[in-house]
């Protein structure tokens, strides 16, 4: 009972947050919806025994990334509300078509398998605790190369961001 409860509530919040993201008019509301989603997702991670990841998610995603988003929203300052009428020709048709196919596939899969996905491998009996030392022991030994690469990636991204937003005109005048 408790498990279902512990699953259903965060799941519902995730979905709710996602819906807010795509349907809200004010961009700030969108960001708030996203924060809701991310936080609820962290809760779900905890129920899945991935505690460290949940913490990292809260820190990085809900903390840093969303803050960045909010900064940009404030800076750009969306004054004009978005037009609800679709401008691109044929887009409505295509979108609704894709939607239908999407819903069709998902419902088909869910119903035909009777809400029991035909997974090839059966789940293991024991459960793993996502503790930092367990993660670290694998991350820094087996997965050291991808780790270094994404560090380089981060540096490159940061440099790129500065270069893109660099305003030579205002700098020169000073």
């Amino acid at each position: 009972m408790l498990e279902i409860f512990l699953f259903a509530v965060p799941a519902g919040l995730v979905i709710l947050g996602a819906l807010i993201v795509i349907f809200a008019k004010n961009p700030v509301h969108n960001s708030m919806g996203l924060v809701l989603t991310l936080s609820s997702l962290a809760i779900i991670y905890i129920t899945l025994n991935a505690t460290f990841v949940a913490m990292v998610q809260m820190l990085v995603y809900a903390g840093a990334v969303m803050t960045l988003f909010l900064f940009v929203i404030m800076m750009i300052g969306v004054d004009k509300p978005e037009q609800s009428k679709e401008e691109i020709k044929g887009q409505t048709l295509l979108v609704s078509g894709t939607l239908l196919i999407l819903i069709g596939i998902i419902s088909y899969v869910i119903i035909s398998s009777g809400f029991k996905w035909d997974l090839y491998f059966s789940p293991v009996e024991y459960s793993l605790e996502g503790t930092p030392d367990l993660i670290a022991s694998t991350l820094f030994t087996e997965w050291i190369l991808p780790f270094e690469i994404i560090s380089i990636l981060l540096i490159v991204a940061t440099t790129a961001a500065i270069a893109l937003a660099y305003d030579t005109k205002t700098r020169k005048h000073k």
Partner: protein
Amino acid sequence: MENLIFVVIFLPLLTAIGIQIISKLVNELLLNFLTINSALLSFTLASGMFAFLLMNKFEPIHLEFFTWIPNPEILFEFTLDGLSGIMMILVTGLSVVIQIFSTSYMSKDENYSRYFVYFNVFVFSMLLLVMSGNFLVMFFGWELVGLSSYLLISFWSKKQSAARAGNKAFILNRIGDFGFLVGLMLTLNTFGTFNYEKVFSAVLSENHDGLSIIVICFIIGAFGKSAQFPLFSWLPDAMEGPTPASALIHAATMVTAGVFMLVRISPMLQFSEIGKLIIISTGLLTALIAAFSAINQDDIKKVLAYSTISQLGFMFIAIGSGAYVAAIFHLVTHAFFKALLFLGAGAVIHEMHHEQNIHKMGNLKTKMPITAAMMGIGTLAISGIPPLAGFWSKDEILASTFSNGGIYYGYWALSLLAAFMTAFYMGRHWLLIFHKETGNDISSVHEAPKAMIRPLIILGIFSVFIGFINTPFFHGLEKVLEETLQYVDITHLPEGITLIVLALVSIGAGFSGLLLAYLIYIVDIFSYFKIKIPFKEEIKELSSNTLYLNKLGEIIFVKSMKSFSRKTAVIIDGLMIDGVVNNISSLFYNSSQKISRSQTGLVRSYVVYFGLFMLLLIGLFIATPWMLN
């Protein structure tokens, strides 16, 4: 000995090629030397081979050139027997005489060398035809002869009428050739070979189903080549060509190819009653139509053209009655006196500075006595006056027809009428040109040059004496053809008193024809006795226009073909084929335009496409899970 056959056949071809090569380098004299000597050489070799045959009782000589197709076996082969031997001498001999004449007639013509090239090609093709050993080689010669005829008829190609006449000749020939070709195919299908001996021995030993169809197809081919009804209208138009060419082609050799071919296939022909009936009826019809049309012609050569058609009709009558020897006999005699008449006409045309209307001539015998005398001999010969050649051959035809009895009496009577008409129009021809005193100016006319006179004299002598090769007293020609026609049922002359009476009747017809011509045109007997001939003008009109048969043919065939081909060009070619090609290209253009509209440059549409196809892929994998393995 066999290899000499090669030389005789291919020597004219080599001469033609040689003349073509050196044509720009040499003058007329050297060219004459070359071509006449080559013709003489051919004739000498031909005579030598004929003598050899004579000594060997005309046993056939065969020569295989090469094997063309191994299965079914089709060779390129030649046969020299009595029939082909006679034709060989005829062709080569006339080639010498007519070429001598041509050197004078065609001199100063700007296309002098081209004429002799075509001439030699023609001689080559005719030799190929007559010395063939199987139907296929004969067909080669057949086609080549048609081609050479076309080339020579439209020789002065800048004249539109000449070009059109050449076209007409070739096309009408082609219609006949279609029949020949179908006959060829049927022969191969029925007998499995083209070789004469094999085919004929098969015909003689087995039953004769399906033979009539083959025979009729070949008959159609003969009609085209030998200008029988309805494929005869090309011959009068063919007079556009140079006169000596007409002498060779349309008097002596090409048009007789049909007759030759039918005699060649006589072992097959004898078993087809319907074939023989068609031949004799068409021959008679042709003879009568042509003779009627010749009565009122104005052109000196057109009279002779119609006369040729008419005489060919006689030869066909002979074949239809089963008198194959008589047909060949008439072929030979006709070759001589018709060539004589044509060359004489050529001399007259040359001296009258290319005036061809006989009403503008008159009393030429005072100015051109030798020509007049030779033409006179030719006229008497064709009218059947003994002892000249034409009498013997024509009388043999008439008598053989008579001897068949029954319905053939009717054929005999009508043939006699045609013979009478022949004498009449030829008499008119000679009288109007040479005898009648008109007021026309002939002061500048003089006798033809020696190179023209000598051939005339040679041919004149032959026209007098050649008839003696096959009289009722000495069956020379029959002996020559005996080996070739040994399995054929030949109709023979009647015996005794019947023969003499028939001879007298045909002589009478000839004489009366000439006399009537004299009376009408010289003495002008009708106006003397004030006799009015009813429908005189209408008859004259009908005669000049060949009973309007040409017009009829033009309306039926030419106009409909033209409109049909125009429709084809516009609709099928223009709309359908061009339309398809254009539509394919515009299809590509339009579809690429439409497809390029999907490149909107918008992120969102790309997202949609991406999602759509991804979903389709997922759906695919769900539906066919075995594809994931």
